[in-house]
């Protein structure tokens, strides 16, 4: 019978040492699953129509959160509407306030956790997509839209692109390039509304909250436009956080935001932030968007990734 080499035989005499070495080796090879406790929280914001006003509003909120959490909360504007996946990685963000479509992509692709949704001054935390025309345009249905021009907001907008695209497909429009004389992206919801008001586009799509706010500020807009279709309601803006962030910090963050309408300081900041408060968000809110993207684009992240 052949004997094992000397070195191995010697090694076998110390089973405990052997086991320890093996354990250390395996542990070193495994990925680190420890939760991240960052020194500061870097939160991204998707640019809106008035970026200066938006930054100012969010700055009040960031300062309040820094005080309450005892951790510096910093903001950064994501350079382009819809580049959420790319920006999350390159900017090393810990979280972001995201619009419905990008939030859906973030939840799916980056496993972000939706934490809270702000409630706007009209008491709404959700928005829906509108498809609208000028009342004097003679466009009353799908058939009348053929050959006209249409304005979308951005390829990464649920209300301003995904919904109208899905609606058009459901009504038999196979190719927007041939169905319309022209289509273009306005870059903001308000611009899409103004483009239709001016006659720069025959048909427009935008989110209900912006549309309703514009109508509230100038009722003549409501008299001139007609809404032809509406999407289901989805959270307008969602604070999504990386799941790698310590659960305790995520919970504290949500807690501060959900209860800030109950403290005088919190109320003051909410006023500056132009919101009534925050409500809890859940992943189920976004399943409809994922379904819509699958139907309209065949994939969730074809556009705006």
């Amino acid at each position, binding site marked *: 019978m052949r004997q094992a080499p000397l070195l191995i035989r010697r090694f076998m005499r110390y089973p405990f040492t052997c086991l320890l070495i093996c354990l250390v080796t395996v542990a070193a090879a495994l990925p680190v699953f420890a939760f991240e406790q960052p020194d500061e929280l870097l939160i991204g914001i998707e640019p809106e129509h008035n970026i200066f006003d938006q930054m100012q509003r969010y700055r009040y909120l960031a300062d309040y959160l820094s005080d309450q959490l005892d951790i510096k909360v910093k903001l950064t504007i994501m350079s382009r509407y819809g580049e959420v996946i790319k920006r999350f990685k390159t900017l090393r963000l810990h979280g972001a306030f995201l619009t419905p479509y990008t939030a859906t992509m973030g939840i799916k692709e980056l496993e972000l956790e939706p934490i809270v949704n702000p409630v706007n001054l009209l008491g709404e935390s959700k928005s829906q997509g509108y498809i609208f025309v000028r009342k*004097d345009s003679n466009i009353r249905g799908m058939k009348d839209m053929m050959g006209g021009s249409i304005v979308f907001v951005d390829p990464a907008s649920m209300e301003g692109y995904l919904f109208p695209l899905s609606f058009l497909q459901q009504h038999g429009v196979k190719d927007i390039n041939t169905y319309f004389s022209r289509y273009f992206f306005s*870059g903001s919801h308000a611009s899409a509304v*103004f483009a239709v008001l*001016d*006659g720069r586009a*025959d048909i427009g799509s935008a989110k209900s909250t912006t549309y309703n706010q514009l109508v509230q500020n*100038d009722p*003549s807009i409501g008299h*001139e436009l007609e809404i032809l279709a509406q999407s289901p309601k989805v959270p307008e803006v969602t604070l999504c956080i990386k799941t790698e962030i310590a659960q305790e910090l995520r919970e504290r963050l949500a807690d501060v935001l959900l209860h800030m309408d109950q403290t005088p300081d919190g109320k003051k900041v909410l006023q500056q932030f132009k919101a009534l408060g925050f409500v809890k968000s859940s992943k189920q809110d976004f399943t409809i968007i994922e379904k819509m993207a699958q139907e309209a684009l065949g994939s969730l992240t074809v556009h705006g990734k």
Partner: protein
Amino acid sequence: MNTSYRPLLKILLAVLFVLVTAPNLHAGKRVGVIMTGDIPYYGAIHEAFRSELEKRFAGDEKIEIVLQRPFPDSISWSNAARKLIAFDVDLIVTYGAPATHAVIHEKSRIPLVYTGFYEPGEVALDSKYVTGCGFKVPLSSLLRYFKRLKTVNTLGIIFSSLEEDSVRQYETMARLAGQQDIIVEKINIRSQADLDKLRSIKSDAVFITGSSLAHLWLDDIVAILEKDQVPVADIFPDNDEVGVLMALYQPSHAQGEIAAEMAWQILSGTKPADLATHTFRDTELVFNLIEAKRLGLNFPIQLLIEATRVIE
């Protein structure tokens, strides 16, 4: 007469008949055009019309365009219409509402194609010999943009009571301003002497309707208003960049091309009544930043991004 000359005489008569009738057989078509004054907007429509019509008839019949440029007043429009009827043109093309009304008033059976007509659907053009295309600009947008630039308590509206479309635009804008509690200052231009009215206006901003008379003296109007720092909005493009702060207008080439298409169809035998009228609603929005600087106005970025063109 010697009978041997008879065949020769017959041949001679036949040749003479052919020579006399030949020019008529190959004369092609005559199109009479009434383009009010020297308005660049109508000029641009006419260029597009002429170019498209030439394309349509290329290598085919000869097309002669008889162009009338009457001064913007009732007598001149009527005279222009009567001249074209007397010329016995095959088709009349008019730019703008007043010239169109003048031709219809003559009750001629010559087919008429109008273009550059503001909201033709709003006016009863009762004649089976008439068709055409026009445009509509949402005047409320100009009011909205003015208000985003500065406080507008009083809005001056320049129009001409001699021009039916200009009056309609005045009425629409006055109604819109009234709905927003804006006082309207009515500035009726019937002659050059009326420009003096502008020297004493109290308006925060001025809207110029599509009046041919007003556009004949556009540079004078803008110069007077600029002295008082009053911004001007227009529904015709400021091609010469005389200082209109914002212009929301329908691009002219499409109207010219459709008018040419209609003219071609009518000259090819289609009845005007069989051709549906069309109203163009697409617009372009131009902001003049040079003028804004002169007037001490700042265009917010959110406003600037709405423009299809910015003059700077």
